[in-house]
């Protein structure tokens, strides 16, 4: 995965797209983008763009998949064939199977699934353009889609990527940074409860660097949470 570049990725303390190390790209969020779903959202971090939609809670079929004492959450993370440099063949690959699982795990702690016995909450993330940090962008979108579906949550989930590149710790990796980083870390959190629900790390770090990155991720998730909250409030102001 990833194509190396020969360019310096940090020049005079700035990243190739002009950002300072701890700055995120422009973030756009909106909800209720998909009228066919119970809830939906669209989130971009720079060019990386994810749609998310939620269908349910609804009865689960075939019946042998039902659990009598709880509902289940199902999650599908998918990239559109045209979202990447080399066309991606349709259908799940090993990467998307794994990401779908860890995203599901990132949301199970925030839902009250035991309130929906024999039911399923089906959630879908579609990446239509991929320029790094797709899974965390998808998580941010799904968090808002669940909220817009009116599904009770213990907290929102906010997510961001952090990493190390040219010996510099950075936040919100774009595509070229992702492909050339020494290390990258994906974090999803319940920001009000200070609980981590997704943590994946690749590449070499000392423990001290890891701890610094985790703290950076926590701060960034809190900023993202503010944008999520504001977007939802603007949309549903009347309901409060």
């Amino acid at each position: 995965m990833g194509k190396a570049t020969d360019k310096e990725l940090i020049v005079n303390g700035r990243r190739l797209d002009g950002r300072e190390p701890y700055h995120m790209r422009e973030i756009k969020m909106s909800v209720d983008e998909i009228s066919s779903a119970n809830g939906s959202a669209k989130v971009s971090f720079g060019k990386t763009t994810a749609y998310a939609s939620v269908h349910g809670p609804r009865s689960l079929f075939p019946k042998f998949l039902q659990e009598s004492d709880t509902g289940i959450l199902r999650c599908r993370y998918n990239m559109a064939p045209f979202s990447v440099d080399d066309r991606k063949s349709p259908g799940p690959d090993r990467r998307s199977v794994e990401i779908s699982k860890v995203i599901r795990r990132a949301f199970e702690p925030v839902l009250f699934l035991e309130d929906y016995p024999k039911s399923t909450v089906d959630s879908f993330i579609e990446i239509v353009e991929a320029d790094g940090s797709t899974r965390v962008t998808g998580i941010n979108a799904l968090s808002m889609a669940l909220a817009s579906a009116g599904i009770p949550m213990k907290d929102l989930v906010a997510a961001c990527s952090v990493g190390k590149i040219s010996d510099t710790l950075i936040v919100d990796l774009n595509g070229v940074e992702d492909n050339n980083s020494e290390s990258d870390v994906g974090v999803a959190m319940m920001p009000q409860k200070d609980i981590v629900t997704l943590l994946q790390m690749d590449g070499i770090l000392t423990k001290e660097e890891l701890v610094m990155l985790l703290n950076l991720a926590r701060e960034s998730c809190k900023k993202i949470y503010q944008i999520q909250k504001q977007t939802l409030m603007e949309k549903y102001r009347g309901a409060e």
Partner: protein
Amino acid sequence: MMERYALELIEHGKRVDKRKFDQFRDIEIKTGVISKAEGSAYVRIGKTQVIAGVKIGVGTPFSDSPNNGVLIVNTEFTPMASPEFESGPPGENAVELARIVDRGIRESKSLETEKLVIVPGEKVWTVFVDIHIIDHQGNLIDAAALAAINALITAKLPKLEEGKVVAGEHGDKLPVAHKPVTVTVCKVGDNLFVDPAIEEESVVESKVSIAVMEDGKICAIQKQGASGIAFNDLEAIVDLAIKKAGDLRKLM
């Protein structure tokens, strides 16, 4: 509920959203929406939303047409877009939609595949048109065909260096000679109408998708639906499609 209501309205010459029988919902077309794609278009017809993305790569020609590039049209009905869509390989509806869109482009000779040869008989451009359904609120075929042709006419060929694609850089425009437009005409009882909303779609008895070229010639037809159509109704259906195709083309 909504279906019965939609049916009653149609039988009284009306529609759920007060449109006329020959009237489309409002249409939005945006091109260049996916910068990673060689060409792309977002099409919204009412609440139905579709993104078509064109990816172009270096491939080998088919052995029976060594001097032509390759066109591949693909659709996935992602479950995001409708509670009725399921994960998994494309079902018969997704396959049929992709093949209708494909034929509209292929049979009109819109894509000039003879200009897509890199090394004759060995290397040609392969043009993938992937149609991603964002929200399914009726009339996917017309939306998908409109997105596909708009993505194609705005697409650029990748830049080649020493026979390899340079990621992110582009050269000439993709050679596209025609702009076919597909219109699906629906039939309920004796009523013909276009652009069904999703509530109407479920009561449609039969429908005919017709791809029309700039000069009014027809380049593809597909009858759909579980009912037959009286032979004598066919001409009126074709006439309506030709007329509406002209209207749609003005939006491009």
